[in-house]
């Protein structure tokens, strides 16, 4: 039995899958170890009755079209992983219900009083025109934003080509530097975007969990540009299809995958990792390690305190964990038309300002903010005829489960789900509760169980102006605890998201391949 590898990848989340596939395809003796009995981490699925639910994916902005493929489509093509993509040309609808006496309130769809009801199309021009129709005078600033994000992508291309000299780069791309050093709020103000238009424009904050007042404009636009330019995509058979497709690539390239295999310890030699212990018993060795487990748990679980470099301990203690989610999965015994749902993705909030939305959910278990998705809008046959599936997401921050006893947990789940569903029913002016055939509710402990992350957060560390994507990228080497033990996944440079996790996995794999080829 083989017990020695070139590289051991710990955890088969999106980051680990991409890392293992890249290493195996480069001919490295690769072993992928996963605690759970299937791949993907968040990128999975589960069956209840006649429904198969998507557990995590809201939308992918990195797929695009065959003529204009995005990052994710390119990664899957490079790896040779085949996925049947479905796309969608709407970005989101934002609804902010109004109190009875709010002077800004007006009657929206189904007689619901709202302050904002904005269904935004994909495409820069269409998006900006729609924004202008809701907030007159915002067209120009909106188009400027997309001009800047287009410039930003040109800058990335130039940087990657390595052909441009620093001085020329600085003069040509001064604005891009400014985007990196300033918040979303500062830049939109500078571009003269009206406040109300900003509220609509920044609605995507929830997908990265960072509010406009603390998030750098560069990275916000990297995401927003992708969604608005290309629209959103989903895999046909839930994200388990994506994970299975990469699993297949790894095996076909000669890599080995072991499920139900939890790493319980990292073995050290001369102050560096040299092996792992699986399920508390089996020892396996490798030259290089790529770790898809969140550092806040990987470091204390795998190493003795004295083995953890002081710098790594500070990085764990000095950063805050990003957003945690509450999710409700509903199998409905009515079609979306019967329910009165005609948008894929609706953001519903009690506050119109995105920064307030962020403030309101801090440390809270309930309310104020919910996203509702209807997968049938993108994939009509995702559930049996006469039915549909809904997916509700709430967001929070912090160790909110403190004081919850095991015996309270089931009731708490029901209470939270009830509030989230009620909030959707009110904002959309429709009935949901009478038609629920299947329901599953996930709170942070559920995600903690399946992802093994602090606070059950799928988002890694809080993205912030001081701890931005760009800073993390530049200081990547400093962030790794040992030179042969690299992290990948949402805790790394790009924060959460499928595309980001694949990227970090590929990047770590690239470094490992290079080192092993150089014989280090």
């Amino acid at each position, binding site marked *: *039995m083989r*017990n020695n590898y070139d590289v051991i990848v710990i955890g088969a989340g999106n980051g680990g899958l991409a890392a293992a596939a890249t290493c195996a395809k480069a001919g490295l003796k690769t072993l992928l170890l996963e605690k759970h*009995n*299937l791949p993907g981490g968040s990128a999975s*699925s*589960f*069956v209840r009755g006649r429904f*198969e639910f998507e557990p995590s994916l809201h939308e992918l902005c990195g797929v695009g079209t065959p003529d204009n493929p995005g990052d994710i489509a390119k990664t899957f093509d490079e790896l040779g992983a085949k996925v049947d993509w479905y796309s969608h040309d709407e970005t989101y609808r934002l609804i902010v219900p109004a109190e009875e006496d709010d002077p800004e309130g007006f009657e929206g769809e189904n007689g619901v009083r709202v302050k904002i009801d904005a269904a935004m199309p994909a495409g820069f021009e269409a998006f900006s025109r729609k924004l202008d129709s809701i907030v007159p005078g915002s067209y120009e600033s909106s188009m400027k934003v997309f001009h800047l994000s287009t410039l930003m992508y040109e800058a990335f291309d130039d940087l990657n080509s390595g052909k441009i000299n620093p001085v020329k780069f600085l003069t040509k791309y*001064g*604005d891009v*530097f*400014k*985007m*990196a*050093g*300033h918040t979303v709020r500062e*830049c939109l103000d*500078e571009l003269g975007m009206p406040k109300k238009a900003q509220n609509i424009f920044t609605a995507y904050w929830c997908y990265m969990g960072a509010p406009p007042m603390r998030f750098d404009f560069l990275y916000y636009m990297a995401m927003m540009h992708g969604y608005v330019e290309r629209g959103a995509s989903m895999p046909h058979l*839930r994200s388990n299809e994506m994970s*299975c497709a990469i*699993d297949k690539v790894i095996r076909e390239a000669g890599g080995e995958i*072991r*499920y*139900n*295999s*939890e790493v319980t310890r990292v073995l050290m030699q001369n102050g560096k990792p040299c092996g792992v212990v*699986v399920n508390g018993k*089996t020892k396996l060795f490798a030259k290089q390690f790529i770790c898809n487990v969140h550092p*806040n*748990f990987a*470091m*204390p*679980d795998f190493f003795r*305190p004295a083995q953890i470099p002081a710098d790594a*301990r*500070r*990085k*764990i*203690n*000095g950063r805050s964990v990003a957003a945690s989610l509450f999710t409700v999965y509903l199998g409905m*015994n009515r079609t979306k038309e019967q329910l009165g749902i005609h948008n894929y993705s609706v953001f519903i909030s009690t506050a119109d300002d995105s920064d307030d939305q962020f403030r309101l959910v801090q440390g809270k278990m309930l309310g104020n903010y919910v996203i509702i998705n209807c997968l049938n809008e993108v994939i009509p046959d995702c559930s049996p005829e006469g039915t549909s599936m809904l997916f509700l997401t709430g967001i929070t921050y912090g160790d909110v*489960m403190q004081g919850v006893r*095991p*015996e309270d*947990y089931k009731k708490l789940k*029901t209470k939270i789900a009830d509030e989230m*569903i009620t909030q959707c029913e009110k904002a959309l002016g429709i009935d949901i509760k009478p038609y*629920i*055939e*299947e*329901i599953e509710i996930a709170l942070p*402990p559920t*995600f*903690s*169980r399946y992802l093994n992350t602090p606070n059950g957060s799928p988002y890694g560390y809080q993205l912030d102006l001081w*701890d*931005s994507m760009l800073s993390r990228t*530049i*200081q990547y080497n*400093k962030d790794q605890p040992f030179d042969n033990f690299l992290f990948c996944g949402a805790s790394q440079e790009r924060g959460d998201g499928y595309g980001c996790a694949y990227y970090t996995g590929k990047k770590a794999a690239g470094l490992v391949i290079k080192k092993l080829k150089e014989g280090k």
Partner: protein
Amino acid sequence: MAGLLNNLKIRDYITILANRQKQFGLADDSAPAGTDASRALARALHPNRQYLKVAAVTERAEDVKSFTLVPDPERGTKELAYFGAGKYLTVFAEIDGQPVTRAYSISSSPKASLEGRYELTVKLVDGGLVSRYILDNWQEGTPVEVSAPEGNFEYQPLRDAKTVIGLAGGSGITPFLSMAQAIRDGDEDFELILLYGSRNKKSILFAKELAQLEKDCEKFKVIHVLSDSRAKASEGFEKGFITADLIKKYAPADKPYSVFLCGPQQMYAFADKELEKLGLERKYIRHEMFGEFHNPAAAPDYPAGVPETVKITVTQAGETRTVEGASNDSVLQILEKNGIAAPARCRSGECGWCRSLMVSGKVYIPPHLEYRRLADRQFGYIHPCCSFPLTDLVLDVPEAK
């Protein structure tokens, strides 16, 4: 070219980067906690294994016993995982070198688990391996290894009607017993009207306990349905089988109700036909799982010309072996009979714990047990507990954790 962000300064990236390092420098360098409330809760509710011992054995009827299980701190279990009424435990055992698993619904209340007690009730199955073993061997002090509470046969107020008609047959009474106690204890809030099928008065399990629960709790009512032709109908007793008319007689006429079923496979076959007559919406009918499927060759869609024995080449944790088995056994059974422990919980096709890669070969999967994920079907994953080999197979099976 004039920029668009003219009033903003290029912030000195060197300073921003230095600040990031400064921020880390200020942080505490003590050993990280490595836990939080979500992790603690997840671990308390879903331990990988629970190490218990038998504290008491109660004879319920001929060949039916209840076992009170308590934590065995010496083997590492200090507290029992709390559960929602209706869940089951998977029992792990080794019988003559054969690693086996079986699911048993918890018949005690959720509240009792907080006091350190689970009760399982095991009825002998004719020719059964594990039920025989448990009934013959478990006694006070026997160490027992079980899973966390599993399964989805639970009341859910956002989905189910306020009134539930429970249809129980034989040992299928167990989850309902737990539900009735949970209602009494205030841990669940719904009205449970239980139609409980038994052969005769003598074969009713938990007759006394059910009667007491009825007295203690006005939201619970039990009607015994006796199939023995010599039985007599009287207050609380009906004769015959659980038919549509009988359900109508006890169900509320003016409001929706849910029907929960738990019992032997023959009961489901009969009751499902009766339920069709009532025209209930599908959301109001919920079955506990079917249990192991046997004798696939009798199924109408089972192909012809299947060899009696097959070879299975299994890779598990990097080790490969080839074993032989009968095509009439499930893939999981063949592995176990060859001394290979494979992951399993429900053994009914539903839970997905046994998910394994079929590298090559063909299997028969009973259509009503097809609970695999769509992509798993496409990429060759099977649930060995309800897959029957039609040819030689090559499998990659995860470790039994």
